[in-house]
């Protein structure tokens, strides 16, 4: 996965459950909403970078 540049990430909270439902991330310069699904390539890369200490997902506002 050598083509995905992630510069920011923040959780989105589900209004009903109150739990995190998505990650709002800036990927290759574009704001995207990424589901918490390991089969999603963007989420997989976000978590790889988090585990490598290269990225922090901010809590929802």
């Amino acid at each position, binding site marked *: 996965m*050598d*083509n*995905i*540049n992630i510069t920011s990430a923040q959780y*989105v909270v*589900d*209004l009903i459950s109150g739990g995190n*439902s*998505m990650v*709002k991330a800036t*990927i*290759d310069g*574009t*704001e*995207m*909403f*990424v*589901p918490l*699904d390991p*089969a*999603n*390539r*963007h*989420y997989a890369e976000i978590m790889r970078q988090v585990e490598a200490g290269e990225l922090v997902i901010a809590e929802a506002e």
Partner: protein
Amino acid sequence: MSKARELANLGNAYSDGALSNRNLIINGAMQVAQRGAGPFTNASGGYQTVDRFQLSGTMGGSFTLEQASDAPSGSGFSKSFKALAPTGFSSPTSSASAKIITSLEGQNLQQLLKGTADAVSVTFSFWVKAVVTGTYIFEVYDDDNNRTISTAYSISASNTWEKKIITISGDTSGVLDNTNGSSLSIVWWIGAGSNFTSGTLNTSWNATVTANRAAGQVNGVASNNDAFYLTGVQLEVGDTATPFEHRSYGQELARCQRYYQVQRYSDYDDNEIVATGVGWSSGLVFCHFKYPAGATMRARPTCTLSGDFLVLEGGTSSDSTENTVQGVSYSSAEIRFKNSIVALNSACWVRYKSGSSITLDAEL
């Protein structure tokens, strides 16, 4: 090819298990480009134009990617994937690489019996054209087990379409996951630094050794405006290449939409009067909409909202100012549009404005 030879090949294809749906590659004729035909120039590669095919690695600079209206004459193809280096990379770094890749789900490859004693051979056929002649490397990469096999082929004439046929043996090691994840990646190398070329080309299935992956690869993008074209990609079970299995645009689009889909303002003749969706306000200024996907997707998709949308309630309207995706499933997204007009518990709807789009991305 004689009729007798064609019949014999069809007989072999039947013996290998298929006369229809032989081609395991999606969009092999490069017909579908939902992101646009381009040309798109950027330094990050990835999926930019033709569906299901991406440029991985960029040699450290920018490529221009395009769905080109350039295809081998008399072949029945009309489009190709074009990767052009506006500025040549005459001295790539050791870690540089550029390669076109398409990836396949493991659950669609179980008939290869990979990782078993009965593993079967597969045959690839494709058309290529390049400015730079010489040896190029074609690689099949097992994403599940980090195994690979490479084949060298020659492009003998500059700027001339050539058809290549490559058969690779079955791999008795490394079972492919029976899931929706990427299990095999098909790789056309265009250029590679010494990290990938300093070893000996790996011509049988083995655990991946980086230095052996592209040994012998010519630098196909050494000079300004060097370009590489690809089309007519077919992967079929067995050791026989049959004629390309042409599919209709609609069939190919539907297959591609499992991985990516987009709706945009310019898709509609009447533009603004097409509603994105109908929703309900959950509170002052917030409208929630279910956005249906055009096809069930491979995984829960990444959703991107671009441009401005118009929220309407009764006879009034307001530009949305802050849009959020609350959640996604394999077949829909819940989008919240912030606006200045809707009252609590009101029905409302949303229209595209000029330049706006909604994309769902579940690519491998």
